[in-house]
């Protein structure tokens, strides 16, 4: 039989200490989320009302609501998704279903990592140089959304590739053996069994896109636009830029307004994240093979 030696007891104690320290470290990281959320609710909560959500800002943005910014964010996100989802899904399909293990594939993977790592303000400069000036779209929803699309492309690619790769290889082999082409296999077996995972990634992308500020500052977001956008070539207000603007550029704004804007913005973003996480947990419980 083993007996508890001093050495043994000491290493047990070291284990307990390590565990406690790492737990405290984890808690230190996640506590701020709760504090921030709590403060925003307490200070921004009183500002939230139907009128706040559904009316335009008034009196040099020192009163009124956020409706044009909300609508603008919806436009920006929608157009960005239209551009990035097809390209991102295609890229993920290539990497998961076609790409051989060669230099090109490694280069693509490196490019994806870099696309995700380039500072958002550099994406903004790219948007100005490419979409606003070179393609002469001008500062507009379209230019801002395309900039956002390029920036969030890695989110779609990575999430889609992951859910494609979760489909067992044996299913593909079975289809190929029956004489199905690669594309028929993708369309009839691979995509139907990964579409929910792709959707999870897309929701996550919505959350990312809605919160971005720097990429839209010079490509299409405006501090104040009196009317709602009619086309993708209009400039627009946006939630994120609106928060930046009233928090830093505008004086005399009552405190609860920026807190209210921040609360609405973070609610949208966290709600999308929660949906995405919930969806993922639900999918994990769903057994199809």
């Amino acid at each position, binding site marked *: 039989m083993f007996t508890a030696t001093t050495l043994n007891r000491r290493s047990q104690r070291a284990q307990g200490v390590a565990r406690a320290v790492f737990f405290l470290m984890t808690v230190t990281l996640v506590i701020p989320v709760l504090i921030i959320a709590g403060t925003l609710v307490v200070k921004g909560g009183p500002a939230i009302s139907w009128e706040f959500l559904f009316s335009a800002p008034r009196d040099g943005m020192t009163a009124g609501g956020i409706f044009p910014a909300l609508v603008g964010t919806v436009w920006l996100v929608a157009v960005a998704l239209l551009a990035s989802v097809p390209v991102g899904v295609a890229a993920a399909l290539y990497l998961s279903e076609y790409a051989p293990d060669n230099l090109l594939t490694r280069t693509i993977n490196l490019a994806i990592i870099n696309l995700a790592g380039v500072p958002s303000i550099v994406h903004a400069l790219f948007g100005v140089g490419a979409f606003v000036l070179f393609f002469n779209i001008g500062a507009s929803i379209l230019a801002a959304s395309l900039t956002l699309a390029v920036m969030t492309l890695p989110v779609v690619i990575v999430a889609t590739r992951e859910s494609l790769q979760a489909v067992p290889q044996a299913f593909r082999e079975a289809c190929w053996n029956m004489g199905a082409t690669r594309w028929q296999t993708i369309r009839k077996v691979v995509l139907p069994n990964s579409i929910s995972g792709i959707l999870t990634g897309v929701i996550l992308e919505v959350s990312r896109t809605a919160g971005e500020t720097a990429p839209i500052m010079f490509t299409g977001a405006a501090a104040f636009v009196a009317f709602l956008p009619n086309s993708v070539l209009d400039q627009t207000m946006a939630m994120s*830029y609106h928060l930046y603007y009233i928090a830093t550029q505008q004086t005399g704004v009552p405190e609860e307004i920026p807190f209210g804007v921040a609360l609405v913005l973070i609610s949208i973003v966290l709600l999308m994240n929660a949906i995405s996480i919930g969806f993922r947990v639900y999918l994990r419980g769903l057994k199809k093979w």
Partner: protein
Amino acid sequence: MDRRDLAWYVDRVAQALVFVGGISAIIFILGIFVFVTKEGLDFVLGALDPGEFFTSIAWRPTSNNPTYGALALMVGTASVTGFAMLFSVPLSLGAALYIGEFATGKTREALKILVEMLAAIPSVVWGFVGMSIMNPLIIETFDVPVGLGVLNAGLILGLMAAPIMTTIAEDALKAVPDTYREAAEALGATRWEVIRRVVIPASKNGLLAAVLLGVGRGFGETMAVLMASGHAINLPTSPFDSVRALTATIAAELGDTVYGSNHYGALFTLGIFLFLVTFIINLTADVVVRGIRKK
């Protein structure tokens, strides 16, 4: 029987389209480099004085006798990122160890979700938190006149960079085969001894990559730093000093420049610099990670 039917042609077309999607990431990354360089090139070849750019702290693009010294901006970025990493690296690695090696079941799931939530908070909200919550807190706690500076931006940035470091570090820990752990535990080692002597050494490249990506994240952050750092050109001597970051300078000034002017070109030159530095950081992280796979 043997003829190329519609399905055959559809397959070919699909393959071509998907390939275009596949190389899009390369096209975009090249596009970013080309277009940012294109707008900055005139300035780089003309008015730029490299000596001044890297050694002077005088960033006075709008004065009658404009100078473009970016040293203070680089120091600003470095000090904020460095301060952030100082507390965020240990916390993130500790959190990764706890989530990956100690926590189980529901606790683990809950902590992972909270870390994801941390990652989801938009940078403009972080900036706003820095201005409106942290700022008064710092002024009151430390009895200083201004709460916007290295400390404030560093704390914010550290929290922002933590999720990516935690996630990647946890992946690196997960990549260590369970057989290693079981073998060591069979020899009578405690969990912690296994982690310290087996898991951490086996995953150190992945942990290093996690830190590098965290540094890249902090280095490139724009809105939060712009709002929480005080945005003053300054070589900081204390954590309470205001500083100005490279990214924040572009965000704050580009709107006021004239297209094609030296000031405009100088901001794009900062962009080129940022692009190159983050590119190198990401490349290094990738090489480091590839190092583990080879083994």
